[in-house]
């Protein structure tokens, strides 16, 4: 089924563990994004990617690592999880049109709890 998917949908881990959240889109969108949603902060950008092998930091990148070897995949890794990284994580994608990315389309989210 076409669209943008995230896995896992729910994850519980412990402080210090490495965790990877997966994001896959079937539209061949050039842009992909990772956000976290926290109460009172809305959606904050962690990392984004304009194309395969091109990534850049967003507003809150500390403690996270991304890679994009293929256009359709954009995994987010928490190298050593901390309690402050307990959050809901959303992946999004958008096309590139006329020099500017268009509307972003979001995945269903991953709820991560760090104990």
């Amino acid at each position, binding site marked *: 089924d076409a669209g943008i998917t995230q896995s896992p949908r729910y994850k519980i881990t412990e402080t210090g563990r490495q965790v990877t959240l997966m994001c896959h889109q079937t539209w061949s969108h050039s842009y992909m994004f990772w956000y976290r949603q926290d109460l*009172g902060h809305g959606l904050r950008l962690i990392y984004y990617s304009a194309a395969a092998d091109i990534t*850049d930091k967003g507003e809150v990148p500390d403690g996270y690592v991304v890679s994009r070897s293929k256009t359709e995949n954009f995994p987010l890794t928490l190298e050593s999880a901390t309690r402050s990284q307990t959050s809901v994580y959303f992946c999004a994608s958008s096309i590139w049109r006329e020099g*500017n990315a268009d509307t972003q389309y979001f995945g*269903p989210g991953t709820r991560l709890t760090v104990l």
Partner: protein
Amino acid sequence: DQQVKQNSPSLSVQEGRISILNCDYTNSMFDYFLWYKKYPAEGPTFLISISSIKDKNEDGRFTVFLNKSAKHLSLHIVPSQPGDSAVYFCAASDPSNTGKLIFGQGTTLQVKP
């Protein structure tokens, strides 16, 4: 520094009445704005957008108004329905053409039957 602000965390409206959600921004270079709607346990979905060359954009029950001089936009929902109960995010497109969106904190709308 929050460049896009939604100062009302929540709003409660009676079914059939108008819902007005507000959003303020600080960067005068912003020229494209979007509204997203989010239900619990789902990702945000695009609702409506407006370019700075317009002051109004309408799509069915949803209308977005842009006041550039006040750096303010609002989303009107008329008439409101219980299914409209959700979190609404205002966003501005990064004027540096990075493809990024800058989101507000969100407003939770409750439409009572």
